[in-house]
């Protein structure tokens, strides 16, 4: 029991249900699940939009850039909300039989994902600021620059934005593989804690 309520997760599932195996694992709170999936869609979209918009000189590149900036800032707002919710609601503990190394890997990779979700939009905002370009959100509304106009800062942030974007994509591939491994192979309820439903037997 104690394993299931670790991390300050204030059990919404009766321990007896868990013990009888009717619920394999406590789910994330609904708001956490909505945030996770909404942000997953936004972040994957941002990665595709990002590499797409810099790949072409066709008019579509402008439309993609116009979506890229505000969607990135939306992700920054959402991740702040998400971490606040997480601090209050906690997370369900991972299954007891998961090897310690795997648990560590899961925890570490989740923190890296959060680090990328926070840093990417801030770096993007900073990069546009350092280029001396207006940080346009939509027609007529722009954010203030967060950094001075500077070649040196721009060069560093431009590299960082690209490199972290590619690392984030690689990390997401790993994350999706792990999630599907839980869903299809281990069938231990880890996937369902985020996706809803119950693992197939």
């Amino acid at each position, binding site marked *: 029991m104690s394993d299931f309520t670790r991390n300050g997760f204030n059990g919404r599932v009766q321990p007896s249900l868990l013990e009888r195996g009717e619920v394999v694992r406590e789910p994330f709170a609904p708001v956490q699940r909505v945030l996770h999936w909404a942000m997953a869609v936004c972040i994957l979209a941002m*990665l*595709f*939009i990002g*590499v*797409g918009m*810099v*790949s*072409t*000189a*066709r*008019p*579509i*590149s*402008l439309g993609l*850039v116009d979506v890229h900036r505000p969607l990135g800032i939306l992700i920054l707002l959402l991740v702040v909300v998400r971490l606040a919710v997480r601090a209050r609601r906690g997370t369900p503990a991972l299954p007891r039989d998961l090897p310690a190394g795997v648990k560590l890997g899961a925890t570490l990779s989740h923190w890296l994902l959060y680090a990328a979700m926070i840093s990417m939009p801030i770096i993007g905002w900073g990069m546009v600021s350092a*280029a*001396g*370009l*207006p940080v346009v959100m939509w*027609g*007529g509304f*722009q954010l203030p620059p967060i950094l001075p*106009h*500077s*070649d*040196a800062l*721009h*060069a*560093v942030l*431009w*590299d960082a934005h690209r490199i972290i974007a590619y690392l984030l*994509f690689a990390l997401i*591939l790993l994350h*999706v*593989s792990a999630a*599907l*491994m839980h*869903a*299809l*192979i*281990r*069938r231990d309820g880890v996937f369902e804690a985020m996706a809803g439903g119950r693992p197939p037997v």
Partner: protein
Amino acid sequence: MAAGNVVRGGAVIGAVLAVLVAAFAWAGGWLSGDRLSPERFITALKPPGGFGYGDRRNHAKGVCVTGTFTADGAATAVSHASLFRPGTYPLIGRFSLGSADPAASDSATRVRGFGFDITGPGGEEWRSANIDVPFFPVATPDAFLQLLQASGSKDPGAIGQVAAAHPELKAFGGWAKSAPWTASFAEEQYNGIDAFVATDAAGSRHFVRWSLLPAATAQQVTPDALKAKGPDFLDRELESRLASGPLHWRMVLTEAAPGDQTADPSQAWPAGRPTVAAGTITLTAGQDNVAGPCRDVNFDPTILPSGLATGDDPFPAARSAVYAVSYNRRTAQEASGQATGGHDTGRNAQ
């Protein structure tokens, strides 16, 4: 954990990863070499001597200027942009030669440019890069890429092939041969060439192009007289003018008539279209190309105030993408200390 689950699950995971990676590669344009990428323009622009470290990948040679834009308010009839409301707003500008070669000769480079960055009330910006040619040599960015590639090609017939496929190029050839030369940046008219969409306060859309008409009278000079001035006189000439007083241009917006094409900057609109004088550009000081405030400005023509927007002309988007790559590379070189200030040393940058 049944073996069947492992095999089936593994296959699904593999398939999902393959789809994600393939889709990402497609989005990034890495699956085929035929995307119109901004890098292809930069490669094609590279002059025989290479780019100067830290220099712009086109219009490399130039000079910074500062001043103001004073709006009369008349242009509010076509655009609700805040910087068309009566007022005086700060401007950073740059005069340049239309060549990727940082050592291009002032007396032999046909195209001259002027970029401006006006900061309106509330910090909204309008950036624009304009040239003294009244129309663009070719109709599409694809054709321009072909033209750049042909210009850099060793095949003597390459330009002829592009000209045959793009007859609009003839008009540019005619202009280059017959347009009068002047010995001053201050005596040129600079044209925005691309068509943009202005939206007025009532929400009506107007297709516009703009020109900057010099207050200074153009003194025609012969190519031989220019040559006698040597390769570097335009900066000094500008400096001496600024030393004796500010320089002015009238900014005039021209509105398309119904039926005028708006997607092809190689076609000038017929004379007699309605115009509105938006205001006056006043330049008061000049600065060095490398030490001046224009160095780190990307005069990206899609940085527009609300009330001006891109329309169906494909060039502004293409320019935005290419100028960004140029900017990224030159600022990275500036930052790494490789920049030499450009004139003929430290060449060969990508």
